[in-house]
């Protein structure tokens, strides 16, 4: 192998091509720990595209609301806006799971509070 080939191989190996690290949730609305009144939609932003598989909301009594995300599973995206149903005031936990374009499965949750208007 020539020196030129070795340098090329080294450069290719070190170059961060496409997705090498997993997707991470960078922002959401409502955000982690936020107190909001009657949110109409849930916005999730990731640093890298992924396919959302499940998004659920759980209240403090353990009642689960599963959001319909069937239209999002087929195509990966870095930004999702999901309509929310009418939610009762109180603490809620949002749990999302997704599959990165690299095939990595992820699951995370965060909480927010709905305050009476």
């Amino acid at each position, binding site marked *: 192998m020539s020196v030129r080939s070795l340098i090329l191989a080294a450069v290719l190996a070190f170059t961060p091509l496409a997705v090498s690290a997993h997707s991470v949730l960078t922002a959401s609305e409502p955000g982690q720990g936020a107190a909001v009144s009657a949110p109409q939609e849930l916005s999730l932003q990731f640093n890298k595209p992924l396919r959302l*598989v499940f998004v659920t909301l759980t209240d403090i009594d353990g009642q689960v609301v599963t959001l319909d995300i069937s239209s999002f599973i087929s195509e990966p995206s870095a930004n999702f806006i999901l309509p929310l149903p009418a939610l009762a005031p109180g603490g809620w936990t949002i*749990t999302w799971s997704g*599959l990165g374009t690299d095939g990595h499965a992820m699951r995370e949750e965060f909480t927010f509070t709905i305050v009476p208007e």
Partner: protein
Amino acid sequence: MDSLPIIARLMILISATLTAGGGLAAVIFGLPALKRVQRFGALLGIVSCVFYFSSQAALLTGRWDGVFVPGIAHLLWQLGGGATLLFVVFAFLLFLFHHENRLLLLGKSCLLLIGIAWLSHLTLLQKPVLFLHLLLALIWAGVILPFLKPMQSATLAQMAHRFGRVAVLILPVLFVAGGTLVWIRTDGDLQALWGNWGLAMTGKLAFVMLAGAIGLRNKLKIVPEISDAYDAPVKAFRSAMVVDALIFLTILGFSAWLSNNTPV
């Protein structure tokens, strides 16, 4: 639930060490190929792959029986590397059948490591770096179990000496390949090393250094004494191998955690 894929990855890495690692050690250093250990590793590997697939489904659905949730198995099969996982299962399956032919053993070992590297979440051009890293790490780890098997002092000294010579070459390349992988995972942003991921990487590095130090002590102090056929150095060498085995298990644990998490 979050730890299931990490446990599954750890099981796959342990299985790969017992099969491919042992195979590579047998081919390169002429160490005895431990048939039973390899068969056990192959079975554990196949179970681990099934567990890995199920753990991904469990993580996605938040349910232990997530793999049975309609659509999930199909989704994971298509997008979560189902075909690659099947390839890894096939490679593990080959270790159920023992061959004396060293070339076949080398081929089986490389096939398995290619499969595991392919299963990673790296890009096509980065997977060869992981393959090289796995190859060298498992050559190193693979020598431990055969060295624990009773053998004559002279043979043990000869093989340990042969490994000691190659280890000097393995270690620097292993560090370069490992460093490249860290660079890839962090996208060259070394600020990412200040978080939990960086802490785990430092922990892994510390254990690799410890294994290196034990290897150096074996090479410089213990192995030369074995050639004089004293009993005490053989015992010291075996004790060092047991410690090495525990260190490698810890390193594999760190590796499984690191590959499942993101530097933030």
